[in-house]
């Protein structure tokens, strides 16, 4: 089968871009997306006629233009022999777009495919948005009536992790400090002012024991990635990133397993990660950096353990000890992660791949991981009930 490369990228700085309904001078999603598409294709050294498939992360329901993918094919006059479609899968939505676009190239249906999307939501208040998101992470009839929110499940992970592994809220909070230090070096990050551990611990509680800086902010964002066969990538004569391995696993549970298990063991990324490493013929120890979908600090800790980047029960301490910081043993979330780079949820996994594509092409500027060759990224849905993991490799 065809090897698949990432050869071009463009991303909107994460922030508040969405216009309030009814306001003048609206920022329209398709105008933003169109500009990113042209930038990403130019970055790849290709032209419009090379594009043969479009796989979009579905837009939030707050985007008025529906059937966004087919609308965009018209807007930019992009006839495609490969698919034009949009995908949806909670926080994994952008990951599915990347995976599905890669499949079009892998299966030979398109030599060049775009994985892309735009997530605009900040004109809707957090409390109103939560009226919808509470129905996405749990059972509408047996969980939602109690008031559970998406991040409340992660907060319970934190409580259990501290209890089982002798960790602490302070240790978890070190992840937020580390991620903000990374974001300070990332021009597209939403929050870039450095913070201290005291700053994190002094924030109001959102879902105890996690405060404001340990949970994701809300943001708008958009990303376009250009994927191509390795033959096309080589012909450009530019550095590119190869998809070396891929793994996926859904544990067959939604938020909690009705059969008691170790909730913080994160079976899905453990299984998907092992599959991705095996597919790539590498091990976790070979990774130079990782970009993990982790809405809360605790999630980065648990996913890093599940992906073999830290021993079980030691992920938070690894952040305290600086192992996961730039310059450390295994830098994690050099973008600033979801807390500081930002979390426009449906496209967040595309931002993760964007960051690794920057790093693996040596374009990450002040946050560049020296000699970065291999990297791992994961995304998830629910309480990491499913995980999609990719191993990426620098090629030049």
């Amino acid at each position, binding site marked *: 089968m065809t090897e698949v490369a990432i050869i071009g990228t463009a991303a909107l700085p994460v922030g508040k871009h969405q216009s309030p309904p009814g306001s003048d001078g609206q920022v329209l999603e398709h105008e933003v997306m169109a500009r990113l598409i042209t930038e990403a294709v130019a970055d790849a050294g290709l032209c419009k006629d090379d594009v043969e498939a479009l796989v979009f992360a579905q837009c939030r329901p707050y985007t008025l233009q529906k059937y966004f993918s087919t609308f965009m094919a018209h807007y930019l006059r992009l006839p495609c022999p490969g698919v034009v479609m949009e995908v949806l899968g909670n926080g994994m939505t952008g990951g599915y777009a990347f995976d599905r676009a890669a499949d079009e190239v892998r299966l030979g249906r398109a030599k060049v495919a775009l994985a892309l999307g735009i997530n605009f939501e900040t004109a809707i208040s957090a409390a109103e948005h939560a009226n919808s998101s509470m129905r996405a992470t749990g059972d509408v*009839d047996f969980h939602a009536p109690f008031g559970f929110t998406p991040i409340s499940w992660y907060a319970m992970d934190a409580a259990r992790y501290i209890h089982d592994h002798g960790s602490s809220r302070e240790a978890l909070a070190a992840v937020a400090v580390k991620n903000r230090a990374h974001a300070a070096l990332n021009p597209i990050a939403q929050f870039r002012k450095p913070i201290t551990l005291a700053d994190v611990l002094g924030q109001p509680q959102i879902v105890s*024991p996690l405060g404001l800086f340990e949970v994701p902010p809300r943001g708008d964002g958009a990303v376009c990635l250009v994927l191509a066969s390795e033959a096309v990538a080589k012909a450009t004569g530019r550095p590119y990133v190869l998809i070396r391995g891929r793994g996926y696993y859904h544990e067959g549970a939604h938020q909690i397993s009705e059969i008691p298990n170790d*909730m913080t063991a994160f079976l899905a990324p453990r299984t998907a990660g092992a599959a991705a490493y095996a597919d790539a013929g590498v091990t976790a120890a070979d990774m130079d950096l990782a970009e993990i979908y982790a809405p809360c600090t605790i999630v980065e800790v648990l996913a890093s353990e599940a992906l073999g980047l830290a021993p079980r029960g030691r992920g938070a301490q690894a952040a305290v000890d600086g192992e996961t910081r730039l310059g450390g043993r295994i830098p994690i979330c050099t973008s600033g992660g979801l807390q500081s780079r930002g979390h426009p949820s449906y496209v967040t996994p595309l931002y993760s791949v964007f960051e690794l594509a920057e790093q693996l092409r040596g374009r990450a500027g002040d946050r560049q991981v020296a000699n970065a060759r291999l990297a791992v990224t994961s995304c998830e849905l629910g309480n990491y009930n499913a995980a999609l993991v990719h191993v990426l490799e620098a090629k030049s």
Partner: protein
Amino acid sequence: MSLPILSIARRRAYPPRTSQFTAPFWENLAAGALTTTACACCEKLTFPPKPICPHCWSSEVRWVGLSAKGTLYAATVIHAAPAVFRDEAPIPVCVVDLAEGLRIATRLLVIPDAPLPALDTAVEIVVLAYEDGPLFAARPVAAG
């Protein structure tokens, strides 16, 4: 033996839907019993109750009573609540492992502003009798 039934002087913020199948669960709960379904073939329990056994996919299930005793597996307090729950925040919630080997998620009844009970604390399920129907919650056994 009936579970403790606590009257709540308000309506449920986000009431569950009931189906013809799940109606007995809510009717039993209102009467003070926590129930679910067990498979007639593989005998495994499930929660919430389901008309098909998720373990062996048999359609032969029966209603059984649960002891409503368990331990606190995880807990949090939701300070930033969805709009429909805004007037109830902060909201303590939890995951409970029932004695029968079932894991459920529910409200946690604690003294306002007091620290959450330690994990693995023994808890019991109680009925919350709202004006428009029942929900359930867990509370430390010592608080009973």
